[in-house]
């Protein structure tokens, strides 16, 4: 009997390592992935996920670094979450959103590095899918570095599949060097990506989206001829065109229209977005005559509408005061609704009050980040910088659409024209995309904020020139002191 037991124990011992092996089910391991076309597509899709879930979905998201704290958009009331930006008392520690955004953008970088590494020489993937997926990876990684360098300037830069420890010791790389590398990547991407998509692929990055982003990077580097070439190529050769009227760009039923080059789609019921909520008013603020509130709510309700938003992204006082009396104004500035005067002025083009189709916290509207309106103005800017007379054609095409009467510009000095493009971009793209980046790029960020009417916010009083870039969060510096090697002041914040 004892022998039996000993035998049993021995069997137990020897077979244990097999018995204890994990039954790997329900998880996807890097070792058994990247084996087929659908898997390659899902890997590329994964890069969009982080953007869609975190960067371009929630109201504060990246917008805090793009149109808040500029001359465009503000919250309708004092809101603690945005105080660091609107009051420009930003420090290394007082704005949680900064660290989240830093991580999200780097997550895309790391994921893209891994996708590129795993697809590049992978013989199991068809050429067509491999090309497209690699093109998407190059584009989305470049987009991450575009945002990282625009927000923080010099940042850690890596394009290889490094270990966590290796990444954790990287110092900052010069922003121009990163941009130049990304321009090369985007050129590669343009060669890999298709010109357009159909069906359920609409919304993927096309070669024109890559070219759009490359134009932005050329502008950052003041590579004017290259910027003009790229934007001209989009205007002349892409399937995209300006829509005849400004308002139809924002038709919620046709958002990804011919003018749109790239954007982020959302779907009500499937983790819908909350950006629209930030533009939508809240009933407790409206209408201006509060005794009419019940009546007003009833009128809204009869139309299937509600004022159930946050009211946290409305045109800045400065923008309200200065907006020209053009055809865009009624889409940018809404101070009455259904005959009721409103307390605040809202950015009508990004609102949607339909609480059934577009419920609170669960909206389906796209966030279009690249459209033809901007391409024309980028072309105009680049042409002006090299004295190319086509600059007038580009800006006047936009102004033709924007004004009822003839508003063509002519015979401006280079400086005047530059100023005109800067203003035109503001009214054309108010509250849509990357105003802050442009102000910094033009070198007018400090003076613009300093002189803007911020209403109750103290941004203009507190703004300092170094605030054009955000500080790298203190927590990150504690974990990786090498981030101070090239700039011990952390962008001037210490």
């Amino acid at each position: 009997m004892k022998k039996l037991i000993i035998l049993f124990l021995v069997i137990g011992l020897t077979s244990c390592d097999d018995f204890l092996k994990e039954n790997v089910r329900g998880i996807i391991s890097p070792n058994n992935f990247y084996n087929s076309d659908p898997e390659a597509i899902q890997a590329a899709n994964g890069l969009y996920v982080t953007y869609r879930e975190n960067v371009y979905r929630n109201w504060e998201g990246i917008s805090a670094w793009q149109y808040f704290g500029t001359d465009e958009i503000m919250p309708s009331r004092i809101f603690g979450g945005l105080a660091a930006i609107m009051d420009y008392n930003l420090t290394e520690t007082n704005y949680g959103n900064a660290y989240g955004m830093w991580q999200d953008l780097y997550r895309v970088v790391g994921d893209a590095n891994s996708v590129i590494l795993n697809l590049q020489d992978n013989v199991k993937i068809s050429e067509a899918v491999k090309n497209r997926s690699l093109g998407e990876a190059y584009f989305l990684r470049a987009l991450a570095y575009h945002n990282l360098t625009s927000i923080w300037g010099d940042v850690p830069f890596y394009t290889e599949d490094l270990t966590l420890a290796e990444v954790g010791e990287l110092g900052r790389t010069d922003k121009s060097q990163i941009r130049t590398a990304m321009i090369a990547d985007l050129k590669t991407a343009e060669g890999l990506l298709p010109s357009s998509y159909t069906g359920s692929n609409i919304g993927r990055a096309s070669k024109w989206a890559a070219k759009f982003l490359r134009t932005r990077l050329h502008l950052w580097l003041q590579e004017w001829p290259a910027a003009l070439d790229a934007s001209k190529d989009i205007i002349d050769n892409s399937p995209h065109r300006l829509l005849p009227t400004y308002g139809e760009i924002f038709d919620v039923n046709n958002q990804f229209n011919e003018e749109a080059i790239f954007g982020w789609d959302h779907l009500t019921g499937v983790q819908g977005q909350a950006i629209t909520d930030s533009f939508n008013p809240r009933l407790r603020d409206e209408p201006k005559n509060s005794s009419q509130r019940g009546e007003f709510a009833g009128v809204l309700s009869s139309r299937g509408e509600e004022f159930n938003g946050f009211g946290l992204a409305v045109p800045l006082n400065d923008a309200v005061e200065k907006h020209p009396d053009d055809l865009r104004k009624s889409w940018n500035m809404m101070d009455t609704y259904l005959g009721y005067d409103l307390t605040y002025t809202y950015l009508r083009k990004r609102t949607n009050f339909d609480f059934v189709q577009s419920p609170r916290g669960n909206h389906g509207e796209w966030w279009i980040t690249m459209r033809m309106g901007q391409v024309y103005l980028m072309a105009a800017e680049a042409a002006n910088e090299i004295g190319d007379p086509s600059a007038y054609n580009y800006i006047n095409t936009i102004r033709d659409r924007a004004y009822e009467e003839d508003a063509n510009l002519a015979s401006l000095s280079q400086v005047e024209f530059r100023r005109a493009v800067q203003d035109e971009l503001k009214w054309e793209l108010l509250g849509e995309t990357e105003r802050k980046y442009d102000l910094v790029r033009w070198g007018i960020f400090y003076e613009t904020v300093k002189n803007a009417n911020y209403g109750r916010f103290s941004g203009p009083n507190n703004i300092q020139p170094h605030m054009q870039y955000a500080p790298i969060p203190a927590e990150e510096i504690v974990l990786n002191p090498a981030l101070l090697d090239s700039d011990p002041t952390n962008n001037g914040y210490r």
Partner: protein
Amino acid sequence: MTKQLQKAGAMLLVLLTFGITLNAQTTIKGKVTEPNNEVLIGVSVSINNTTKGVITDVDGNYSIQANPTDVLVFSFVGYESQNITVGNQTTVNVALAEDAAVLEEVVVVGYGVTKKRDLTGAVGQIDAKQLEDVPASRVDQMLQGRAAGVQVTGVNGAPGARASIRVRGGNSVNADNEPLYVIDGFIVGTDFNLNNINTNDIESIEVLKDATAISIYGTRGANGVILLTTKSGQNAIKGQPRVAVNFYTGVQNLARKIDFLDGNERVAYGRELAEFAGEADPFTDPAELANTDWQDLITQTASIYNGDISLSGKTDAMNYYVSVNYFNQKGIIKSTGLERYNLRANFDFNIGKKVKAGIRFNGAYTDTDNNKVDLWGMRETLTAFPVYRPDGSYWNQNTVTGGVLRNPVADIDLTTDFTIGTNLLTTAYVEYEPIKNLTFRSTIGPQVSWSRRNNFDPSSLPVRAAAQTGGLASINNSLSYDILQENTVTWNKEFNKNHRLNLLGGFTWQKGASEFFSAQTQGISVDAIGYDALELGDPLTYSVASNFNDSRQLASWLARANYSLMDKYLFTLVGRVDGASVYSGSNNAYSFFPSAAFAWRITDEPFMQNQTLFSNLKFRTSYGSSGKESISPYNTLAVLSSGTLIFNDTQQVGIRRGRPSNPDLKWETTNQLDIGLEFGFANNRISGEIDYYYKKTKDLLLARQIPRATGFNTKLENIGSIQNQGLEFTLNTVNMNKGDFKWETNLTLSGNRSKVLNIAGVDEIIIYSLEQGGPGAKLIVGQPVGVFTGVEYLGTYKSQAEIDADGDLGLRQIVGGPRFKDENGDGKINNDDHVVMGNPEPLFFGGINNSFSYKNFSLDVFFQGTFGNDIYNEYAQRGFFGRSTANFYGELRDRWTPTNNTSDIPRAGSMVSITDIRSNSALIENGSHLRLKNVRLGYDVPVKSEAVKSLNVYMAGSNLFLISKFRGYDPEANRLGTNSTVRGIIRGEYPNAKTITFGVRANF
């Protein structure tokens, strides 16, 4: 109720068909008493070498058929047996002497049973007798205050809700801190649904606490082990099957109601607020106003019913215990409840002289009606809102926010949400004793659990009707399975009078996993269909998910040696090696947990023989380690994770890096020292135990911050340490035992002091944050686990001068509004001003049970309480500070106004943004409480009947009164349930009931 009785009656019939037969010979009668002529009830009177036997009735009388040559055996637990030859007597009266060795009580320990006198470790024993007839669905709810060192907190008051238990404090931060449950030797884990066990089937409950007791369970023992042993036919009388019946029924009511401003007061407050803040009056239309007591509308007087029937018996070849149970508890919140059917069958067979075998089978079916509304969810359902519109439809407008209101009455009336579950828990064993005192035992058992949750929110539900989204139906299915196989060998050897040795060795393996599937759709237009035809929903809203969870295998070797020298010096060595699949991807797949103990029976020393003060004195100490598996499956492996993205309004799947591989992970280890003293005075009329323990847990798994340029924010590493130390005190006294009157007291009292020693090298970790208002609970090095943090509330600003003195603190400062302390004096109130304000750990906690008996009456009164702990009342952030959208505490009637300008309750309109009201000291409340937890008054009805052996009727009460200053329902609740570190945070959990039941117990 009649339906329930019918069910119970049917069960009774089934059991009675087992039947009883009797022979007819000479009738012997008599009475059995104690030496002092007290009658003894339930004494076994049997005829030697036969299966015949009876038990004495409530007057101590018995009657048995016997031949003159027969020998009658009188036996009773705690008394010495007597054998008497019948001869020609017809009346045999017997006085049984008390067994001198009361210490011969046995204690169940891991993988065995030991005599209490030989025990070297700290094991809490709970007398299952005292838990009888407590109206509760699960045993953990009953353990509160019953064992020293065991802190039991109800998670909430819902029927079937679990209790959260800490044995000698919590060891871990990220892993579970609940004890391990072992039912009849089957290791069911820490989150076994105890609703599946009929509490009346439980024979004994042991709580293993010290290192030697728990390290036999290796990597799963560190949090303490609760051993549940169910009844068997072992102690039955041969040839006399016994049918025991227990029925009770009763009513439950909301134990406490929260005082809120009523509708009129709320409207007045709202107007005051609007006027002061310069906002519009939110309550303009009198037709839209009401005075609604929502608490009354959602609660009810609820019934509770329990029926148990069991059959037990013994023959030479086998013994058995079979029981059926029906339990039905309605909740005090409408449309909640728990219904259970349970069957247990325990059999032990003697197969020849050397082989024994048996099974323990438990099958349970439960149907839980899940809660649909809670106080927190109703915080914006103002008492000023009506329930119905004038046309009778449900009111669904929140006139304050302008949004749609979730009407709780509609939720209760219209939504369906219930979970049905089945659990089968089975162990079979075989024991072989080839030579005397050498026993091989092998067991195998599967556990299978299946549950399905059906949920339907019909299209007519106001919120859904408003959004025109049709009905929402979902089904969640889960199946889990677990197989345990254990092989042990034990050897008992008594070398001579001075040396006794008991050895145990074993090899065991266990594997389990669970699988989950869910489906959901919206847009169901026909409400009658509910969740039974998901395909009728809108295909665009279909949502399905499935996963494979918690797949684990464990292989273990265990050993224990007990050595007794001269019966006075007792030594124990224990060790277990565990190998776990979750660590197979790491370099630390196997781990060894050793421990050792020593005990000294002082009263057995010669020099103690001449004293009479101590009847028992035993010193014991132990030291050793136990572990915690801590990590989830695949934590050591690199994984990719999936996410959702949308292209052209089409949902698609994306795969990205989820987690890098982590081969350095290892087990969390707890080292524990225990020093204890067992004592007895006055012939053990006063007896008890006192224990000191010190535990230090190292290698705690914590997420270490890593640079986020990696795309990740944390990495799991073994880098933390926590200590717990405490005192435990148990006292059992027989206060009076005179004539017909007996009074006994059991007291337990304990205090634990936890301390965070190291948390990944940082000073603090936030473990709980308010939705808005900053960190509310933290782990801070040098502090107890889970202290509450916030800014200090200084009352209201009484004058502009006070505001000017404070300067602009970056939040709203007005006369009559709240004033907070700028702790660090930097001129701003923010997270940096959060200081420690409270501690969820009580200074001490315990329970006291008093049992009285007089003639046929018995009375048990059990109090339970805690002292010195704090509660974090999250509701107060809105309810006290006056968030414009919430219901407010009644105390706001005395709020600051220009005429009541000394009040420290903030004025109406002082809160504009909830972010101005940070976590603060006004949310911290005293959690000390004393509760009359259980009362039972019983009466033994004298019956003179062959069929009915005994009959007891009783009345029992639960939670009859509560002394507590807490503003909420009950100081005992945990918003985060069994969370390992976040304790004592309450914001409106399901309230506790006050219960009164009537019952009857009978033996046939």
